[in-house]
């Protein structure tokens, strides 16, 4: 077991090094970028979540900064609306389209149509063969790191409640698959079946009642060790439910780094165990830079990773602060 653990950590370090050098390359070529006279279409499935709003804002701010015109479209979590917006956007023939999140199964045929219409497509956090570049966090890393943190906190054994309602969202798929992969090395950590479903909207309330129900079903202390979700809004509800039930032995894990959750992890008394904090605003900005480079005739890699940080109970005081400051600076609560 120790050997396999070492192997995993070794692989992680390698991956991290690769990610860092990639980031270094992309920042090394930071030259004078411009989008003067260009129209950039931006389509987001929704902006009701901190991450989504920050990335959406990052894209728009950067396009304006570079002198371009933005056509910003927020589908309000409605697939129908996003498809209609993309269809009209294709007819508007912008110089490039940046697409942010959504259901890949729904989107793919329409992303194909964007390329068929000769419009360069860039995506944020959405891995699809149709995009010239996808700018995102290294979700393979994030997924493994948060899973390993959870396993370590659980002492390598126990039961986990897992929210798996968004497997059709590519980043959630990667993080979930990484969790499963990590758990293959720790057979004593078991996912409780059936898995829970996180939902949008009413994510927090629904997670709260799901976790409360499961804790009621397993009343002995220690019968549940952790709660995992591929993002951190269910984590809010889960943490509240654990604390309300007085089951402080249960720790919660999530990904994204909403200010609320970072504050929870920073609070030593809170049951929030760790959160992998991303830089959504930077991710949005970087995708625009990629589009600008491409439009200037430069070569762009198929994906760009923007670094993320694992914030846990030990490092929260030091690592959490910069993220809270960034959120404040962007004016998003």
């Amino acid at each position: 077991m120790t050997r396999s653990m070492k192997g995993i950590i070794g692989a992680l370090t390698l991956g991290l090094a690769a990610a860092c050098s990639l980031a270094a390359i992309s920042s090394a070529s930071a030259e004078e970028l411009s989008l003067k006279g260009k129209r950039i279409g931006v389509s987001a499935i929704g902006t009701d979540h901190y991450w989504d709003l920050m990335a959406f804002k990052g894209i728009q701010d950067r396009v304006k900064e570079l002198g371009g015109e933005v056509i910003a479209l927020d589908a309000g979590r409605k697939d129908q609306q996003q498809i209609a917006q993309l269809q009209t956007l294709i007819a508007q023939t912008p110089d490039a389209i940046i697409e942010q999140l959504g259901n890949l199964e729904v989107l793919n045929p329409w992303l194909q149509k964007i390329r068929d219409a000769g419009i360069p497509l860039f995506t944020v956090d959405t891995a699809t063969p149709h995009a010239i570049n996808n700018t995102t966090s290294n979700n393979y890393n994030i997924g493994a790191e948060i899973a390993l943190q959870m396993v370590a906190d659980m002492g390598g054994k126990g039961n986990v409640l897992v929210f798996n309602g968004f497997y059709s969202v590519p980043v959630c798929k990667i993080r979930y698959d990484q969790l499963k992969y990590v758990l293959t090395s720790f057979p004593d950590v078991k996912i409780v079946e059936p898995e829970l479903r996180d939902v949008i909207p009413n994510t927090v309330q629904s997670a709260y009642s799901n976790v409360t129900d499961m804790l009621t079903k397993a009343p002995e202390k220690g019968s549940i060790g952790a709660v995992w979700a591929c993002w951190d809004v269910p984590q809010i509800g889960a943490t509240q439910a654990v604390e309300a039930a007085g089951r402080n032995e249960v720790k919660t894990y999530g990904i994204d780094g909403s200010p609320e959750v970072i504050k929870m992890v920073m609070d030593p008394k809170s049951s929030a165990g760790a959160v992998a904090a991303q830089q959504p605003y930077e991710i949005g900005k970087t995708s625009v830079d990629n589009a600008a480079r491409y439009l200037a005739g430069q070569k762009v890699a198929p994906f760009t990773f923007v670094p993320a940080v694992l914030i846990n109970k030990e490092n929260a005081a030091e690592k959490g602060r910069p993220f809270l400051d960034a959120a404040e600076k962007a004016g998003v609560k």
Partner: protein
Amino acid sequence: MNATALHSEAVVSDETRASAKSAGRRFGALVVRLGAIAAFAGIIFYFVLLAPGFTSTFNLINVVEQSAILGVLAYGMTSVIIGGGSDVTEGGIDLSIAANMGLCAAVYATLLSMGYGDMLSVLAAIAVGMAVGALNALAVVGLGILPLLATLAVLNVAAGMELTLTQNTVVGASSPLLGFLVSGSFLGISALAWALILFSALVIAVFHYTSFGLRLYAVGGHPEAARAAGLSVPFYVSFTYVLSGFCAAVASVLTVSRLSASTPGSGELLLSVLAAALLGTVFSRRFVPTMGGTLLSVLFIGLLVNGFQLLNVSSYWVNGVQGALILLVVAITSFARGSEGSR
């Protein structure tokens, strides 16, 4: 004697006053109605002048295509309002229609993904849609529950069944029929747009050019008179709810084709469906819902969303404008109803 004479005189003068007042109101209603239509036309005209690419054939066909699902659902809603009467609190209304579409889409996509063919899957979706419609009919006609409450309850039943079936996930689907709906076209008009055109022609023909349609209006407009004339009111009202369920099933096939999947959240469409059915009454002289009026308002909503995007106005405004228009139309409608009610 004297007292009776005085009394009857008073009644007569009250009546003349009332009819003068109602004539005044009717004139007022006419002015407001034309004003509303002028506002609609004004908005479209503004788009024509200022929104780049608004009038291109490609864009207009896009709008028709984008309106297909809303249109088919709005026809279902309109039929229920026609058959049940357009009183906002006690008349016909089907709040379950959007959730029903979600359930049908889930059934259709799930069966396709399990390997059943188009034929069986479509039939199953239609059967489910009509069954939900029949449940509405049972609650409203059989049990005499207010449609507003009955269909609200059925909304929850349908939404719950959809969640149970899909576990709130996206169910991907592909089939020859879906492929045809996505990429088929005839005379430069896409299959989805054709679906709306043909379905519109069908419902307009049935509701406005057959004696069956006339009877539906009679049942909705004045149930007692319809009963006295020998019409089976329960049958006609039930028919509208089942038809509404059928529309939900048809719309579900269109929605699965457009999204290549059944996805959660179909219930969101309800507001737009209600808006389309209610806005449509403005296009009728007597403020009654008509299929043609519904079609115009569906296209208007589609053009509104499209025009805003072309003008680069935030999509956040669309909901607000849509809500304001509903308020305006409902206000006009109750104003006009007031004149009929006082008679």
